[in-house]
């Protein structure tokens, strides 16, 4: 583990809270979290436990980031079409 990764892990360790939500609870709330974010509201203030979980959990963070980006595309009317996506797979 290089220093950069150890540094990131230390941040996770120090960011640990006594009570954290589970991956299932995060999955349940993440669409609301993204909805708040994409509508310009303060998602972190309203759902701090989701923010804390996605900082700690790589799997949930990956899902969140993709969901956020898709939701943004859709809100902006730029969601990629199936044909475009299919041709982006090579």
């Amino acid at each position, binding site marked *: 583990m290089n220093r950069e990764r150890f540094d990131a892990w*230390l941040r996770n360790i120090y960011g640990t809270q006594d009570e954290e939500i589970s991956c299932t609870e995060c999955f349940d709330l993440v669409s609301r979290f993204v909805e708040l974010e994409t509508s310009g509201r303060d998602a972190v203030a309203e759902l701090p436990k989701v923010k804390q979980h996605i900082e700690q959990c790589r799997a949930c963070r990956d899902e969140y980031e993709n969901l956020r980006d898709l939701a943004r595309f859709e809100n902006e009317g730029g969601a990629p079409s199936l044909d475009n996506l299919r041709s982006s797979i090579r």
Partner: protein
Amino acid sequence: MLSMSNERTNDEWLHDLNASGESQEVAIADLRDLLLRAALYFFSRNLGDFGGLNRDEILQRAEDCAQDALIALMDHLQDFRGDSKFTTWAYKFAINFALMSARHERWKGVSLDELPFSNEGTFSEWALQDKSDGIAPDRSALQNEVRETVQDVIEHDLTDKQRRVILMMVFNEVPMDEVVRHLGVNRNAIYKMLHDARRKLKSGLQARGFEVGETLALFSSQG
């Protein structure tokens, strides 16, 4: 251009999906397209995970993810509270399956019992090999103390299961869903083991006087 699926309101989605006959069939077909789009979107950003597959196989994986997501979503349709757009709520099911599929493809040939960091000697090897060059001696000494503390907590305070999961996920960067598959438990159980381990590591560091700000500063980018 917006597709049909984007033109339904949340209520219309629920109404059509719960209807019968043609309006339900059309809604399910639209929903399936929407889920396929999310799966393909994830795959297109993670093509590196599919090195061993050709294009048709990847497209088929995306179809499989969309189908699995459709089944899971319909099972949970009554859980939709309307606190987000229906499409955002739906996308997460497809992304969840797409992520599992992509990570599994990347890791499928790897034996999780034979990882580089997988035994008792791992931590002392890690502590020794991770010396950084060009750092002031006093800072380097403090960094070593932090590493030794972490090593000590891992070796003495964690349970066997916690230690095993830390080794896999933190030291070997195995994705959570592969650990889930390997150990035969769910994500929540793995998350709990990691959480409990972090709590022990945090209190172990604090008990030895390593408070958050100064400790993180020791490892942040060097000036």
